[in-house]
């Protein structure tokens, strides 16, 4: 069982070419583990404060608590395991998505029913099917990872540094040579950019040179 911890501060970037960062990370600290996992993210254009995902039939939501020095502090809480009660969908999930909850005909929903009968028919909702291969490290007492991420079948890479102590994250960022003005991009924002729910960064073409 996962150990309880305080909400962590996080810095994350996405891109196709993270080879140099991976090389630097590999030189600084050993790779500890590699995990594969599949997740389903629920996205709406208007929601920027809640990261809503389903993994292994369990839904959890991370809430953006605060932003400081370019870092984001996310506080996770468990919504529950499917089948999920309609009441929970109505009072927890849809408020987090920031859209009106549709009329529900069942008392509870399996994951399949939830996706087919509620999510897929809602024009304001998008679903990202995400496969991750996550390589874990510890850098400067920060949980650090490089991951290959398939978003609806398309590849993007990500690097993340997180810790309860924001100073340690900032120091780890420096150790990796990441510029202080590099945009911090969380999972929902990255997914929304790929799926056209959020604008690409202004220097999009340039940044992919």
């Amino acid at each position, binding site marked *: 069982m996962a150990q309880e911890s305080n909400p962590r501060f996080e810095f994350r970037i996405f891109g196709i070419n993270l080879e140099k960062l991976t090389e630097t990370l590999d030189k600084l600290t050993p790779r500890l583990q590699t995990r594969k996992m599949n997740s389903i993210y629920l996205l709406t254009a208007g929601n920027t404060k809640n990261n809503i995902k389903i993994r292994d039939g369990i839904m959890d939501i991370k809430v953006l608590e605060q932003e400081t020095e370019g870092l984001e502090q996310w506080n996770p809480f468990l919504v529950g395991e499917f089948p999920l009660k309609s009441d929970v969908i109505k009072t927890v999930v849809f408020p987090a998505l920031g859209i009106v909850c549709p009329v529900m005909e069942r008392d509870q929903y399996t994951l399949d029913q939830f996706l087919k009968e509620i999510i897929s028919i809602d024009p304001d909702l998008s679903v990202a*099917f995400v496969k991750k291969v996550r390589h874990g490290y510890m850098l400067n007492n920060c949980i650090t990872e490089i991951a290959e991420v398939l978003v609806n079948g398309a590849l993007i890479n990500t690097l993340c540094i997180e810790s309860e102590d924001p100073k340690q994250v900032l120091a780890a960022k420096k150790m990796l040579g990441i510029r202080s003005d590099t945009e911090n991009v969380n999972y929902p924002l990255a997914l929304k950019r790929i799926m056209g729910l959020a604008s690409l960064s202004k220097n999009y073409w340039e940044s992919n040179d």
Partner: protein
Amino acid sequence: MSKEQLEIGAISKPRFEFRTFGKEFDEAAFLMSRLSVPVPEKVWERYSEEIYIVSKTNDINNTKIRDGKMDIKTFIQSVDGLEQWNPLMKGEFPMKAEILVKEVFPAFMVEMPELTKEVYTLEEFLEIINNHRDLQAVRVEKERYGYMVNDTICEYANVWINGALVESVNSESTEVEDIKKTITDLKLENVENINYLQAIKRVIGMNNKKLAN
């Protein structure tokens, strides 16, 4: 009747096409490179940046903008799983509202937005698209490697859809049998034919189907 000799980059009668998208086509790309006849240097490697306009309600018109020029192709027919597309419209920005009303938006098969200007720049057109509930402008970058196998124009490509990478392989020709032989030679039998429009829709979540691998 002798078949038309295809020349890469040249205008020919409408071609049939097999194309697919996925995360990995190393074997097909290797076979393509080994089976290809020499091709002109200009098609060895090409890079382009494009904007596709996708519509929730349309799967038969493919709209693409490259270097300020719009190109709409329309689906004609499918023969043995191969698709034939014909040019429907070509235009350039700035574009007259009249053309947008009569030719462009009808191709999207969506509710017509209100147009208040006589002429639209590309940026103004994209703003209309971004404000339309059923339309999306999708940034696509392509790194294409051209080949010629069994008299069919082939390519292996890295394609970034809004920044996320997929791979694509294709074979196109006016001759259906030549493409079918190429599909066999590239070991792509039983791989789904997925055109650009469908691949983009799948990646951006407008369609929940998966890519080929």
